[in-house]
């Protein structure tokens, strides 16, 4: 972190440099998106006032579906890469890191697909 200036000059153009940048740039989008979502759902509405009808009503609006799609796409990628970076701090072996990388990719892909499938399909009629 402290070598920020040096990094600008010497950082190799590889995936790790891209990931380092993406974590920081995504923050500027994630802060309004996540805080907006959290304040609305957890504080203003609250989990006691939610049911299937509430989700269906919310997703009837294209705006909220796009909002939730952005959240899912950005926040989960940020989170999984964060987890990957934490694990790389403690696992230094080439094989271990390769397992972490592929594991993170699979974990991210599966849950992202599951999330988008539900977001697109919507609430199942009872």
């Amino acid at each position, binding site marked *: 972190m402290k070598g920020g200036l040096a990094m*600008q000059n010497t950082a190799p153009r590889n995936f790790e440099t891209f990931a380092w940048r993406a974590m920081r740039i995504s923050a500027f989008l994630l802060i309004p998106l996540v805080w907006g979502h959290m*304040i609305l759902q957890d504080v203003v509405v609250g989990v006691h006032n939610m049911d*299937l009808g509430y989700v269906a009503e919310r997703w009837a609006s294209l705006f909220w579906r796009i909002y939730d799609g952005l959240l899912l796409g950005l926040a989960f990628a940020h989170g999984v890469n964060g987890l990957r970076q934490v694990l790389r701090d403690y696992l230094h072996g080439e094989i271990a890191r390769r397992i972490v990388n592929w594991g993170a990719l699979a974990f991210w892909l599966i849950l992202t697909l*599951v999330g988008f*499938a*539900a977001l697109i399909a919507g609430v199942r009629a009872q």
Partner: protein
Amino acid sequence: MAHLKTALTGYVSYRGREGQWAFLLHRISGLGTGLFLTIHIVDIALVYFAPQLFLEVLQLYRSTLFGIGEIFLVFCVFYHGVNGLRIALFDLKAAQRWNIPTARGSARLVLIIALVLWLPCAVWMLRSLLLHNFGLFQ
């Protein structure tokens, strides 16, 4: 695993003060939020894959234990956001100003901002929890 042991014992013995506390709090809040986000993607996906199960998960989220966890989750999200903004701004815009005094001062400021954002939300959520689970303020 040896690296993990070295790191964890290092976290306890190293006296990095504010910068180290910010690092640890950022890491813990990020991992905590990530854990909830993973569960949250699955629970919301249930509205399509298994709607009845979604309703049961909602009941679990309404429990007092989860309600308290939710209040801490909101702190994690606020703290991780404000501290993430600090890291992003320094790294991307003012890397030459990353030094011990600015790191310590900004880490303190971040904690104060996060607490100021969190406290009104925490009070409101606690009120809602007491109202729904204990019948207070009726």
